[in-house]
């Protein structure tokens, strides 16, 4: 048989006053709001968002295109002299569908494609696709 315990009888006003004390204690705590554009959020160490590409290291193996789960990466022809990349094909990335799964970074044999902490990619544009040359640039140098 289960015994149901009677709730403890309390003195009426004590609960109200302890509630008020709890509320006024929060007056002295720091607000958690981050004023975003002026104040950058404190990101975790392993946070990654934007995909970068080292054009000199890429060998055009198409592994990143094959491993991408939602076909955000497509190989593009780029007219560029690189002895390691004879077919002259480099990946582009559509950030509209990219889920930041990091499979491309993991699979890349030469560590040419990698992700970094940059995350402010918002601007006026027609397409979310970054061409291979744009992937090589820093975010503030990319002009669309």
């Amino acid at each position, binding site marked *: 048989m289960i015994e149901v315990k009677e709730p403890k009888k309390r003195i009426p006003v004590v609960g*109200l006053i302890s*509630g*008020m004390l*709890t*509320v*006024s204690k*929060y*007056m002295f*705590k*720091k*607000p*958690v*709001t981050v*004023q975003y554009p002026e104040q950058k959020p404190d990101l975790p160490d392993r946070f990654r968002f934007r995909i970068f590409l080292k054009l000199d290291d890429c060998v055009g193996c198409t592994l990143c295109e094959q491993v991408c789960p939602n076909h955000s990466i497509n190989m593009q022809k780029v007219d560029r002299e690189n002895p390691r990349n004879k077919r002259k094909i480099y990946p582009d990335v559509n950030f509209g569908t990219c889920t930041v799964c990091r499979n491309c970074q993991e699979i890349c044999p030469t560590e040419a494609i990698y992700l970094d902490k940059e995350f402010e990619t918002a601007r006026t544009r027609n397409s979310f696709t970054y061409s291979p040359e744009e992937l090589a640039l820093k975010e503030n140098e990319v002009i669309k």
Partner: protein
Amino acid sequence: MNILLRLQELFSPLGHLVSYILAYIFESLFLVIFVTISLIVMIYVFRKYMARVQQRIGPNRVGKFGLLQLIADALKLVGKENILPRNRDDLPYKLAPAMVFVSLVLAFTILPYGDFFYLGSFTVTHSEVTIILLFGIIAIMPIGEVLAGISSANKYALLGALRAVAKDVSFEIPMMLSVLAIVMMASARTPSSLSLESILSSEFLPYGILEPIGLFVFFISMVARASYTPFDLGESDSELVSGHSTEYSGMRFGMFYMGMFGSIFLGSLIVSILYLGGPSGPLESSLGFIWLIIKAAILVLISFTVWLSMPRIRIDKFINFGWKYLIPIAMINLILAGIITLGWGL
């Protein structure tokens, strides 16, 4: 020497009658400005305090630290279109917000503020029966709320008004009983015990120390008078949209909003005058006003904490509380006051 006589001295070349009329007009204007500024400061402090308690930042965009936010809000309210309900009862609908705000400002004219350096006291009305006047004027405010609720032809507003009436009838009696205890104790020491100023000048200890039960009852009544969260039965925003002010917009709504904050400030002032010694304190010859404002500010902060920490009480619970607990407690307080007055001859 108070501010009225100083103004009259200033205008005295214009003749006796004209100078007094001008002095009264200017002092009333001064008081309206004082009330409005204190309301703006209070609403700003409330918003900041609420934000800090909820670990937010609060208004911080308009002006330094968001200090001009309230002025921007007031401009927005003035510039808004007045949307009127079609089936309204026109005159009471338009009269109600003005009634709330005007009676609030009128109540401020009676309080004894104490001296403020060279300027002297800010009190406009001097009378032998200021307590009766004060509570008479305070009793006008609920009439404005009831008029608003009935005249806007809206079921939520009507229900809000009904609840407000039920609330008012249950706390007014204990409030007046606890005031009566003070008048009783003062009558042993001064012939004009209905005047706030003579009550203040004749007390030897703040009445809050002599009758803490009265202070408790009166503070609860003032919370109910200002109708904020534990007792915001007239507003009930989770079930009655916003009660009696549902159909109001623009500056008319702003008047109800200011009336609510103003009655918090007024309640704090009255509690500090009646129970906490009002303008008395160290160096009281010239700093009375400052002491009064400090006491009222602490009470306002306590009121805000009450507001932010408690949920709304159910209507029948509040009426039970008013009639079954507050009135007997106030009666006990009255008896204790009688014992203190007659027994010890204080």
